[in-house]
C-alpha cells in the first residue's frame, strides 16, 4: 500500500497532469447539485447513474416475470396482486392473453437491453476503463454524459409505454414483423410498438456514444507502461464489447427504421401479400425474413455484448480472490477476440426453420459450433485458475464461481441448438428459453452482481455486508438452477414458448407440476433479490468504511484515493510496470504485487 502512496506523489509525469490538477482545485468546490449528480461528466458518477437506473429497470422486469410465472403455474387462478398492478389488463386478478404477451415482451426487452447491455457495460466500462487504465476520465466526458441521458430517456419512454391505452409492445422482444407492423394483428403493435421503436432508437444512440468513447479511451488514454498486454481482462472484454456494439447496433437501427417506414409510411420492406381485418394490404414484394436477418445480425453479437463484460469482470475477480494469476492470460484475450469475431457470422442459427436454404443453414451450423472452442478454453482456464488457489470467498467470488457453472451448463445446450437437425423439434420451445436464460441471463447477471459486490467500495467508499451477500448468492444460485433446469424438460415435452396457458392441449397436462416447481423457485429467487436491494442501498449510506485496497488487488483503480476526485488521482498518474496478475508470485513477501511496482532487476515479467 505504501508503495503506491509514495508513487502517486512522485511528480515526474507530463505537464498535462499538473495542468489538470490546477483545473480541479477549483472544480470540486464549484460543482452545483446539477452538475455533480445529474448532468455529471465524471465517469464515476455516470457509472453510478447507469447502475441505479439499471437496478430500477431490473426490478420492474423481474416483477413482470413473477406475474407471468403466476399465470403459467396456476392458469386462470385469481391473484389480487395482478389486478393491483395490471388493472384493466387483469380483471378479477386473472391476466388477459394480450397482457401476458406484453409482459414477456417487455421483460425480455428490459433485461437484454436495459439491464444487461446498458446496465452492465454502462456501469462497469465507465467505472473501470479510466480507473484501470490510469486515465483522468473518459476521452469525452460530454459524450459520456449524453450516452447516459439517451439511455435514461429511452428507459423513461419504455416504462411510459406500459401505461398507454392499447398496451405496450407485445410481439416478443424480437419484434418480428408483420406482427409488430400491424396494429390489426395485436393491439400492442399500435402506440405501444411506436414507443418501443422510439425508445430503442434512442437507446442505440446512447449505446453508440458510449461504445465509441470506450474504444477511444482504451486506445488513447492508457497511462505510461500500460501496454495492451498489461491491460486487465476486464478492459479487454469491455473493448471488444464496445467494438461489437459499434458494428452491430447500427444494423438494428436500420432494421428499426425500415420497420417504422413500413408501419407509418406504407413502404413494404418487410410486408408482402397480407390479408388482415377483412382487407388485402397493398404492400407486396417485401420479406419478413429480411427483418430477421437484420435483427439477428445485431441480435447474436448482442448475446456477447451481454456476456463478454461479465466474463471480463469474473476473470478479474477470480484471479484476485483466488490469489492466483488468471490461467492463460493470452489465451483468454485470444478467446475474447475469437468469440467477438465469430459472433458476427452465426446469426442464421436463429433462423434454421424460416425456410432458409438448407445449405446456408449448414454454414451457420459450422460457424456456430466453432464458438464452443474459445468458450471451452475460457471455462477450463477459469477452472485451472481455481486449482491450487487460496480462494477467499467474498460474495463477488461466489458469483464469479456461479458464473462459470452457469456458463458451462447453459453453454452445452447451445451445442444441441446449434445443430440444425436437432433444432427442428426444440426451436421456440422452452428448451431454448432454458438455454439462453442460463447461459446469457444468469451468467451475465452473475457477472453484474460480481462486479457490484467487488467494486462497491470503489464506487461508494463503503463495503457491502458480506453475510447478506452470501445469503443473496446461495438463494439466487439455487433459484437459477431451480427455475431454468426443469424448463429443459418442458421444452422436451414439445411445449412452445410464449403460450398464455397450456390447458388447451391434453398432451401438456403433465406439465402443470413442473410449472408450479419453476414458479416456486422463481418467487424464492425474486425475494432473495430483496436482500440485495437492501444491502446495496443500506450500504451506500451506512456500510462500513472501505480502505483504499480492500481486496489486496493489483490493478490501478485501487491506487486512487477512496474519496472521489474529478481526475481520479490527486498527483501524477500512476505508472505501470507489470501485468495485473502477479498474485502469490514466488519470492515476494505479499501475495500481491500492484501494477505500479517496478520489476526488480532479476525479475521476469509473466
Amino acid at each position: 500500500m505504501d508503495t503506491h502512496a509514495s508513487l502517486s506523489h512522485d511528480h515526474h509525469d507530463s505537464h498535462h497532469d499538473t495542468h489538470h490538477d490546477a483545473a480541479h482545485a477549483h472544480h470540486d468546490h464549484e460543482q452545483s447539485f446539477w452538475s455533480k449528480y445529474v448532468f455529471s461528466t465524471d465517469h464515476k458518477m455516470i457509472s453510478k447513474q447507469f447502475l441505479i437506473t439499471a437496478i430500477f429497470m431490473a426490478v420492474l422486469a423481474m416483477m413482470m416475470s413473477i406475474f407471468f410465472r403466476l399465470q403459467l403455474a396456476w392458469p386462470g387462478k385469481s391473484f389480487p396482486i395482478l389486478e393491483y398492478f395490471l388493472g384493466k389488463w387483469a380483471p378479477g386478478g386473472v391476466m388477459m392473453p394480450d397482457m401476458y404477451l406484453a409482459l414477456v415482451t417487455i421483460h425480455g426487452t428490459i433485461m437484454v437491453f436495459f439491464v444487461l447491455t446498458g446496465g452492465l457495460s454502462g456501469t462497469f466500462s465507465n467505472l473501470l476503463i479510466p480507473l484501470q487504465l490510469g486515465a483522468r476520465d473518459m476521452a469525452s466526458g460530454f459524450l459520456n454524459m449524453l450516452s447516459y441521458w439517451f439511455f435514461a430517456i429511452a428507459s423513461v419512454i419504455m416504462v411510459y409505454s406500459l401505461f398507454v391505452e392499447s398496451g405496450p409492445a407485445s410481439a416478443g422482444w424480437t419484434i418480428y414483423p408483420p406482427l409488430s407492423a400491424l396494429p390489426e394483428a395485436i393491439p400492442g403493435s399500435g402506440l405501444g410498438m411506436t414507443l418501443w421503436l422510439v425508445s430503442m432508437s434512442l437507446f442505440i444512440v446512447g449505446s453508440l456514444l458510449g461504445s465509441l468513447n470506450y474504444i477511444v479511451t482504451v486506445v488513447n488514454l492508457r497511462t505510461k507502461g500500460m501496454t495492451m498486454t498489461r491491460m486487465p481482462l476486464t478492459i479487454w472484454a469491455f473493448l471488444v464489447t464496445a467494438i461489437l456494439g459499434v458494428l452491430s447496433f447500427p444494423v438494428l437501427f436500420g432494421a428499426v427504421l425500415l420497420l417504422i417506414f413500413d408501419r407509418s409510411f406504407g413502404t413494404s420492406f418487410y410486408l408482402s401479400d397480407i390479408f388482415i381485418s377483412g382487407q388485402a394490404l397493398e404492400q407486396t414484394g417485401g420479406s419478413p425474413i429480411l427483418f430477421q436477418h437484420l435483427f439477428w445480425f445485431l441480435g447474436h453479437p448482442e448475446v456477447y455484448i451481454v456476456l463478454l463484460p461479465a466474463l471480463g469482470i469474473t476473470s478479474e475477480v477470480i484471479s484476485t480472490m483466488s490469489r492466483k494469476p488468471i490461467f492463460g492470460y493470452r489465451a483468454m484475450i485470444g478467446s475474447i477476440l475469437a468469440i467477438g469475431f465469430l459472433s458476427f457470422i452465426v446469426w442464421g442459427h436463429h433462423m434454421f426453420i424460416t425456410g432458409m436454404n438448407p445449405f446456408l443453414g449448414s454454414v451457420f451450423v459450422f460457424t456456430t459450433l466453432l464458438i464452443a472452442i474459445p468458450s471451452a478454453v475460457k471455462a477450463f482456464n477459469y477452472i485451472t485458475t481455481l486449482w491450487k488457489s487460496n480462494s477467499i470467498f467474498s460474495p463477488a467470488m461466489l458469483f464469479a464461481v456461479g458464473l462459470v457453472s452457469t456458463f458451462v451448463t447453459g453453454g452445452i445446450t447451445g451445442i444441441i441448438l446449434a445443430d440444425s437437425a436437432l433444432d427442428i423439434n426444440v426451436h421456440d420451445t422452452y428448451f431454448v428459453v432454458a438455454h439462453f436464460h442460463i447461459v446469457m441471463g444468469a451468467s451475465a447477471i452473475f457477472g453484474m452482481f460480481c462486479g457490484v459486490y467487488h467494486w462497491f467500495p470503489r464506487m461508494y467508499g463503503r463495503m457491502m455486508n458480506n453475510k447478506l451477500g452470501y445469503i443473496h448468492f446461495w438463494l439466487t444460485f439455487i433459484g437459477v438452477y431451480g427455475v431454468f433446469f426443469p424448463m429443459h424438460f418442458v421444452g422436451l415435452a414439445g411445449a412452445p414458448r410464449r403460450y398464455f396457458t397450456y390447458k388447451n392441449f391434453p398432451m401438456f397436462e403433465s406439465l402443470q407440476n413442473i410449472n408450479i416447481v419453476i414458479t416456486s423457485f422463481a418467487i424464492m429467487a425474486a425475494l432473495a433479490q430483496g436482500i440485495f436491494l437492501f444491502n446495496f442501498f443500506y450500504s451506500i449510506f451506512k456500510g462500513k468504511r472501505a480502505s483504499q485496497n480492500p481486496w489486496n488487488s493489483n490493478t490501478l483503480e485501487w491506487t486512487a484515493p477512496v474519496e472521489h476526485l474529478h481526475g481520479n488521482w490527486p498527483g501524477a498518474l500512476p505508472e505501470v510496470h507489470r501485468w495485473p496478475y502477479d498474485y502469490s508470485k514466488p519470492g515476494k513477501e505479499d501475495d500481491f504485487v500492484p501494477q505500479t511496482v517496478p520489476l526488480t532487476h532479476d525479475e521476469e515479467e509473466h
Partner: protein
Amino acid sequence: MTLLIIIVATLAITAFYYLSTIMQQTSVLKGAQEEQVTEKDNWINAKLMFAFLIFIIGFFIWQIAEYKHVILPESASEHGNEIDTLWDFNMYIVIAVFVLTNAVLFLFAAKYYHRKGNKATFFAHSTKLEMIWTIIPAIVLSVIIIYGLRTWNHITTPASKDALTIELYAKQFDWTARYPGLDGKLGKTNYKLITDVNPLALDEKDNASMDDIITKGEFHIPVGKEVNFVFRSRDVIHSAFMPHFRAQMNCVPGMETYFHFKPIITTAEMRKKLNKQDFDYVLLCNKICGASHFNMQMNIIVESESDYNAWLAKQKSFGAKEETPAASVAPDSTKNIVALN
C-alpha cells in the same frame, strides 16, 4: 412435488431467519473495523460449494426420474428416428461435460479455500494444457458437426416426386389443410382473392383449383407414405409445429415454405403404445402470432392408406363447395370474423 415445495419453503424461511439475526449483529457491530471475509466464511462457503455440487447432480437425477414421462414419445416419422438418435448421441456428450466440468469446478472451489498460512501456486500458463483443451473440444465438435450435418442434409433433401402434397394454411388463429385433388396439383392462389367463401384465396381461373380439397379441424395422412407439406400464411408469421413427427417450419406471408416427412405410426397404434385412448397427433403454432397464439391447433390423423382414401373421398372439393356455400363454408367464415375482431 410437494416435497420440493416444502424444501423451497424451508430454504426461504431459514434464509430469512438468518437474515434477521445478521441484521441484529450488524447493527451492533456497525462502525467497527472493515468488513472482512473471515476464516469461517471461507470454510462455510467452501463446504456449501461441495453441497451445491451434490444438489445439482441430485436435482438432475431426480428430474430425469420424475419428468421422464412428460417427454415426447418415440418419433412417429421416419426422419424423426434419425433426429432422436442424433439427439441421444449429442446428449451423452453434453451430459458428460455438464457433470464433469461442474464437478471439477465445485470440487476445486471446495478444496482450495483460503486458510491462514496457505499460499496459492503461481501457475500462469501452460501451452501444453491449453493445446489439450483447444484440440479435444475441436475434435469432439468436428464429430458433432459432421454427424449433425449428415442428418440435416438427409432431412432437407427435396421430397421425392411421388410424395403426397398437402398445403397447410395459417392465419390468426387457426389452420386449414388443402389437398391437391384428383389432378395431384394445388391450384394457384392470389391473396387479393380472399373472401368469406374463398378463405384460401384460390384462383378460380386455374383449373387445378377446382378439385382441391379443403379441410379444417383435422387433417388425415396415410401411414408409410411420404408427405410434402407446403406452408402459407395469410397475415403474420406462424410456425407449423408437429412435435410428434419432429417437424417444424415457419409459415411466412408472401412466400411458400416446405417440409416433408413419412409418418410411420398410425394414430391408433400410438394410442395403444401410450395407453391413452384420447391421444391425437397435433399441429400447433410455434411462432408468436397474437392474443390466441396459445390455442391455434389442428388434429392430425395418421391412418392406413385405404382408410385415408375413404376419408378423402368423403371430403368436398373447392368447386363443389362453391355450389353449396351456405352448408359448409359459411359457419366457418363467420367464426373467423369473430376471431379476427
